[in-house]
């Protein structure tokens, strides 16, 4: 079980509305949530419950209508667009359902992109660093393959390596295994768990799969934009 230290992420009264006027709907209705260092939590809930929206808000990809986000102690509402981008790049990693690797680039280049975007240039040390990450996810042999030539599981491993490129505090994963067959899904999930244990990176994984959720430390359930249950879990 990952040890929960000081909060790396805290949400206070987060609301999010979509649409204008009559069509205005409140997707998140006041979410309070804290994630501690090294936690491995699952975010569950039916379709349309606001899981992805919440994940995007935590990931600073979307702005809440109301409420506060404290990321690693920093109130993100105080940051301008560029500062937010830089802060996001350095603190957060993302793993999406559809790996979302850039098809024009090779596996290793995809892993290098967050580093190069942060520095503003590419240098050879980034390649070494990215290679180490690919080794970590067991894909160093395919480093120079195009992202488009990788299988679903391989692509998702590369996406995991990419999410770790900046040594983030938190990795947010949106149904990272949703698109994979059961065996591959298990492997990818195990990899996430392993990284979490070895590096004390906090993970929040959105999933529909109870079987996978059972392997996390904490299960948070979101229904109609509200957290309805949040309890620790003893992974089997």
């Amino acid at each position: 079980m990952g040890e929960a230290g000081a909060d790396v992420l805290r949400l206070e009264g987060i609301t999010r509305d979509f649409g204008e006027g009559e069509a205005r709907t409140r997707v998140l209705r006041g979410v309070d949530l804290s994630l501690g260092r090294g936690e491995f939590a699952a975010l569950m809930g039916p379709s349309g419950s606001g899981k992805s929206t919440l994940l995007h808000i935590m990931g600073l990809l979307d702005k809440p209508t109301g409420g506060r986000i404290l990321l690693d102690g920093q109130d993100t509402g105080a940051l301008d667009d560029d500062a937010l981008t830089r802060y996001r790049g350095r603190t957060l990693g993302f793993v999406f359902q559809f790996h979302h690797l850039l098809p024009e680039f090779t596996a290793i280049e995809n892993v290098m992109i967050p580093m190069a975007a942060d520095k503003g240039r590419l240098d050879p040390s980034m390649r070494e660093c990215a290679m180490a990450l690919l080794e970590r996810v067991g894909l160093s042999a395919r480093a120079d393959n195009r992202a488009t030539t990788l299988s679903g599981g391989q692509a998702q491993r590369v996406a995991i390596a990419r999410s770790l490129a900046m040594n983030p505090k938190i990795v947010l994963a949106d149904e990272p295994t949703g698109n994979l067959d059961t065996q591959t899904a298990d492997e990818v999930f195990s990899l996430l768990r392993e990284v979490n244990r070895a590096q004390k990176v906090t993970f929040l994984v959105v999933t529909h799969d109870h079987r996978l959720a059972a392997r996390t430390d904490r299960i948070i359930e979101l229904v109609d934009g509200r957290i309805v249950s949040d309890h620790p879990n003893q992974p089997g």
Partner: protein
Amino acid sequence: MRFEWFIAIRYLREGKAQTALVLGGTTVGVAVLIFLTALISGLQRTLVAQTLSAQAHVFVKAPERVARPLPSPDRVADRVEKVPDRVRSIEQWQQVLASIGTIPGVVAATPTAAGAAFASRGPATKSVTLRGIDPESFARVIDVVPKMRSGRFALEGSEAIIGTVLASDLGVGVGDKVRLATPEGRGDVFTVSGVFDLGNKEVNARWVFVPLRSAQTMLDIPGGATTIEVKVDEIFEAERMAREITRRYGLAADSWMELNRQLLVGLRSQSASSWMIQVLVVLAVALGIASVLGVSVIQKSREIGILKATGTSTGTIQRIFLLEGALVGGAGSVLGALIGSGMAVAFAGLARAPTGDPLFPVDLTPGLYLGAAAVAILTGTLAAWFPARRAARLEPAEVIRYG
């Protein structure tokens, strides 16, 4: 390598069809720019050079005499008749000549005494323009020395220099004698010391150069000069110089531009239409680049969202697309310069005089290439502006979710 360059170059390399389209458009645009400019400026330079091969830039003459009726209380002039003007000398021409020589922009000035005359040898008589000159300063105003077909450009005693057409009309060559006489009957026998070809049939048939002193005697203007011919360093400043001379000395001054009004109007409208074509071409290229990049931004929405999610700033995204436009402009200007200069050289090669000499050179100057490259790169960058802004404004959450 800069991050923006890395991404922009990769996008251009991977989006082969799109890159080929915009690159092709830019290349054609630059080629047209180079070809047209080289051709038109070469053509115009040759036309002007040909016109000026036998013509000074500014002609200074005595002011026209105006007939004025005498004021008288009991008589009303019912017609004012202009006095038929005989050949007149510029007053104090030596001082004026020396003074003109000091005006900034004047390269050289030479006095001439010109009038009508007949040239005859045996039974053949031709009407000619007698031009009494000082060969040394005249050669500085009009570049005649390299255009001598035989003999030399020098006048001593009673020597004359004639054109190729007159030489063949009269059947004379260097060393032969020709009789020159004015309509008033003053005349003398001259020895041909040289034959010129100034590239103009009329001039070759009519101009006869004699020493200034001989012309003064024949035209009955002892010690006088009818015109001062001036060469300036900026040929298109000639008109301004002519006005300046009129202002300073009260003399009549015509520039070559005034005497060749039609040529100048022709040149100007040629330049104007060539400019218009070029502006339209640049506009078409810009629209092409903008629309192709615009489509590519839409196609890449999701990837742009991912780049943003992984720490790429809005400014960087914008620079990536601006850079794509600039790179296409740069590459297009290199290819277009090659094709455009190839076309210009080939075209100049096709248009040949019967002698096999090119009719006109094409003006392929470094300035032209630099200018075309600057236009292409600027056009590419500006055309990429709107697509780049659109890309930069994409919200990562939306394009990742729905993309």
